């Protein structure tokens, strides 16, 4: 199927995740997920999306625990964007 565009959209969203990371480890994790989205077959995108969401949720919790509301707001927005995309692309299940 011509589903390559899903890899593209996910790559773009992962660049947004990269932009809201607050540690080197998270930046590397986001980068590695982006590489997976760009190079792995489309069947792997579901796993990449799930891991990306987990990473972003982790970032949100970390920011909350540090009281960094500005970072949390940015991260939560990216997380929501990722979640919406995952649902609409059929990569995540609703609920």
């Amino acid at each position: 199927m011509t589903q390559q565009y899903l890899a593209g959209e996910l790559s773009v969203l992962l660049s947004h995740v990269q932009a809201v990371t607050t540690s080197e480890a998270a930046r590397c994790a986001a980068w590695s997920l982006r590489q997976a989205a760009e190079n792995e077959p489309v069947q792997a995108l579901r796993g990449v999306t799930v891991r990306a969401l987990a990473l972003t949720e982790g970032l949100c919790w970390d920011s909350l625990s540090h009281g960094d509301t500005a970072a949390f707001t940015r991260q939560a927005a990216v997380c929501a964007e990722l979640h919406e995309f995952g649902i609409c692309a059929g990569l995540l299940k609703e609920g």
Partner: protein
Amino acid sequence: MAEGQQPQDPAAQVSEAQIAVHWREEENYPPPAAFVAQANANDRAIFERFTEDKFPDCFKEYADLLEWDRPWHTTLDTSNAPFWKWFVGGRLNACYNCVDRHAAANPGKTAIIFVPEPESDEHVHISYAELLRQVNEFAALLRDFLGVTAGDRVTLHMPMVPELAVTMLACARLGVIHSQVFGGFSGTACGHRIADSGSRFLITMDGYYRAGQLADHKVKADEAVAAGREEGQEVDKVLVWRRHPGQYASATPMAGGRDYFVDEIIGKYAGQVVEPVSMPAEAPLFLMYTSGTTGRPKGCQHSTGGYLAYVTGTSKYYQDIHAGDVYWCMADIGWITGHSYIVYGPLALGTTTVIYEGVPNYPDGGRPWRVAEQLGVKIFHTSPTAIRMLRKVGPEEPKKYSYHFKHMTTVGEPIEPEVWRWYHSEVGKGEAAIVDTWWQTENGGFLCSTLPALQPMKPGSCGPGVLGVYPVIYDEDGNDVPKGSGTAGNICIRNPWPGIFQTIWGQPERFVDTYYRKYNRDPDSKDWRDWPYFAGDGAVQAADGYFRILGRVDDVINVAGHRLGTKEIESAALTVPEVAEAAAVPVIDDIRGRVVEIYVSLKPGFEPGKQMEDKVSKAIETEIGKIARPKNVWIVPDMPKTRSGKIMRRVIAAVSNFADVGDVTTLANPEVVDDIRHHVQSAKVASDDVPRQLTEAEFEEIKKYGGD
């Protein structure tokens, strides 16, 4: 229930298709009468012209839509099967067919309408005459400033702007092979593709609008050049279009002697006319990269004559494009859909094609419908993902705008019937014919769809094979799976068609192995009938001949006749928060054929144990169903991996099956193999769960598991 009959497993009472997509067969929808009356293909005689006995000459009808510098002498050359050559002996130029001939006949006609993402910006109307001027000037720049000639590769990493179409057409004018990388991809991904194609030039843009922001794009060019260099490919020059000429949107400095702003040098070529280079029909027109299971992307090489004829023909009959239509395909030109059905197909037919810069829901879910109203769009083409998203953000939005589509397309993946119905009744206002389509990057154009005026629509099904394309479903042994049987199998195409890609750039063996080896009947045969094309998608065919696509079949584990995608199983395991990595493998089982075992590694700080195994097992059962429940969950400290990080599934499959793991010395972590083997095999021995000796065929299956 008959006396003595055992209760059936509920999963066995429904077809594989229903298991896979949870849909039932839907009713048919006839096309609106007003659409039928004006359709390009509204006479059933067209089916007669494309019957199998008329193959391959039936495709002359598509090729005749183009202007040829020299006619072909052989419609299909199969002498080097399966490297098919179409319209051999013919010569033409793709740019001439998309621009010059329309500029001559109708210079003021709008070729491209560019819709910038900022809604306050004016739409840009580019006439065919203006497009010809821009293409000529940029072709002159490519020829004289870069020094490129026919056959050279040039990598493009551009967003959705008209300059992208200009660049592609300028390359085509010179016979230069363009390789556009999706603009949203990282510079590193672009660099890999530069290296693979051996491209010495990169054409990019400084920035573009996406979701209200002017994104810095030029920064990726530096990453791309560095990534290309790491793989041994130097980039000599980088041409940078500016989103706003004269203003630089990037924070990245230009590299002296390498980077050049197009708007600063194009003036030198003002008014120049470059004669279109007459190219052999089989000369490559472009490369389009797609991901593969080995991690190395595949550069799909598409031809000039066959490809252009095919996308023009399918645009005419399946998209029902008329020269007077305003046509909007909301895909990105960075993908094959954009190449075929934004640029080459519509422009070859002399219509007006819309290029939209940004995300469809910016600033709100009504944006696409406002654009459609403002531009008088008649034909609308998008993906199920976009349809779902637009439905979610604004289910009531379409009815606020007074546009009228006559035709709509959905492409890319199966669409749920309820989403299809929203698309039909709300977006299409019940007035439009909808075509669902199935095809791939490798295919150039549609393979399955409905002729919109002659074949009814059926939600969730992509339709029968298109004109001149004869699909079939084979089981693993190459037997036909009959239509109406409810049984899924591998959808294949029995014959070549003009849009089929020619090869994988630089990897001809991979081309044959991936797409033709599986069902080839004789490797020395020159007869196309011996070379069915293996698409790699699972499908089921209804009694009416319509196909329903079920998804990729790579690495399917066949459990008691149910085809389970390993990636799906692995993704389900990854929904367990403690799981870092997962790999599903088949284990030979005398009763069920194959059973699934899953290997997982945990994130730091989490301990293995029965509870964790149950959690993984439960997640798979919840996400996919009981049929996918793994026989064993093996929690391992690490997975065997290649140096590039790919999990070596064949190694763990061999461990699970007590087979030879083969050479593991090239792995990044060969030491883990013995640890895993000891852990898994001793547990299996202790529980009397040792599989029998594998047959040669089973051993080969395990050995190849997880490969391309």
